[in-house]
């Protein structure tokens, strides 16, 4: 019998005093294992899912704190598969990122995939100081390939992304996709696509405007030097192409 998992992982990055970035805190938790994969000016960390999940009822959190002058790149080894739990409760995945002045965070994980019957709430809060730099990618895929192939409906993904820059909110948006969300597949929301994503860029050069003929747009956010590339695609592969400048 499975019990719900509660896990709280943390990463703190600060300059190591020799032109590189040190990770004084690199603490995985529960199914979230963290591996430092390379040193150098930018520290690189890979999130490794140590078990299947998240499952319904799980509460996972990851806090990242990038101190002034540090640079951190976080990726993941594989897609995160959201699976149904036993009691129908949703899983929660909370991300809380703080990036200080003259610091930079690249959050470029693999997609989150909502398997049939799953329900996942993700909540991402990003707090940027003035002059903080960010690359943040988020990809959501509705249904595993074999779910869709056998005609099963996808799971549900409710995802909120809140970004503050120098104390001011510059982005706050929630998408609610999958069975149970009103008109989630209609002509205002997904319109038949099965993959949705963003690339948020702050303090770096903006990605190019997406080519015509795709359901994608480069949006200039109200903050300073901040853009959101938002894209929809039939599948994860084509979404990734649209989100890769």
């Amino acid at each position, binding site marked *: 019998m499975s019990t719900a998992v509660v896990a709280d992982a943390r990463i703190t990055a600060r300059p190591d005093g020799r032109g590189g970035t040190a990770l004084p805190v690199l603490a995985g938790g529960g199914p979230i294992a963290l591996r430092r994969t390379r040193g150098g000016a930018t520290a690189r960390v890979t999130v490794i899912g140590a078990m299947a999940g998240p499952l319904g009822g799980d509460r996972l959190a990851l806090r990242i704190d990038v101190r002034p002058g540090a640079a951190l790149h976080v990726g993941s080894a594989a897609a995160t598969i959201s699976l149904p739990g036993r009691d129908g409760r949703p899983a929660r995945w909370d991300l809380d990122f703080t990036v200080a002045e003259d610091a930079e965070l690249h959050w470029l994980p693999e997609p989150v995939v909502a398997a049939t019957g799953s329900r996942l709430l993700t909540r991402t809060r990003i707090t940027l100081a003035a002059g903080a730099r960010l690359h943040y990618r988020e990809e959501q895929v509705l249904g595993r390939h074999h779910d869709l192939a056998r005609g099963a409906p996808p799971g549900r993904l409710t995802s909120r992304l809140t970004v503050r820059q120098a104390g001011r909110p510059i982005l706050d948006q*929630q998408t609610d996709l999958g069975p149970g969300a009103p008109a989630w597949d209609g002509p205002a929301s997904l319109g038949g696509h099965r993959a949705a994503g963003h690339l948020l860029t702050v303090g770096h050069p903006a990605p190019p405007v997406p080519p015509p003929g795709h359901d994608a747009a480069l949006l200039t956010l109200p903050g300073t030097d901040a853009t959101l590339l*938002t894209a929809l695609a039939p599948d994860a592969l084509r979404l990734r192409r649209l989100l890769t400048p």
Partner: protein
Amino acid sequence: MPDRTPAPGGATAVLLLLADGRFPAGGHAHSGGAEAAVRAGRIRDQDDLAAFLTGRLHTTGLTAAALAAAATAAATDPDPDRLDDLDRAADARTPSPALRATSRRLGRQLLRAARAAWPHPALDRLADRHPRGAHHPVVLGTTAHAAGLTPAQAASLAAYESVNGPATACVRLLGLDPYRVAAVLARLAPELDAVTAEAVRAAEQGDLPAASAPLLDILAEQHSTWKVRLFAS
């Protein structure tokens, strides 16, 4: 004896006046994304329209309704900071620059009509602080306060406007049978009330929703680049 007392201050009639498509606040030239969705082949008939309106109501409609309800409450405060905060909250909830410009433009147009109809210091303050226009839900909420309406009434106006404009636009763009479109809107009525209630609850708790719909943002940006278009948004 039936109670024949009208709502205080003529509030019911004021609500009808503000919801009337003929109220001169600029809405007639906006399709709420419907023109772009029609051109993209995503709305072809009343079933597509119903799905479009449902999606819009539960996303940007809910967000706008909560902002409007919060603005009605904030407009009672002589300190303008609360309304300014809501305007920033609306900015953050509108990542598409085309939609931000539309919202501020419609806000400015509504403010013009509201100041003529219900002159009030809160409306003057809003105009002074946002000469390029405050976001439409913020103006709508302030207007509701100036006209003696409640936050719930402001929310219901915002929810209604989120579907009424695109529905009318589709009658014009696709030649849809206006009776069927009226039926689509009539069937949405319970959901409109539910969204209004959810918006009011959220505004009271100070936890403003940020519901959004990906295609609405993408379509709005595409629409803003067209050389030939019938609607302003």
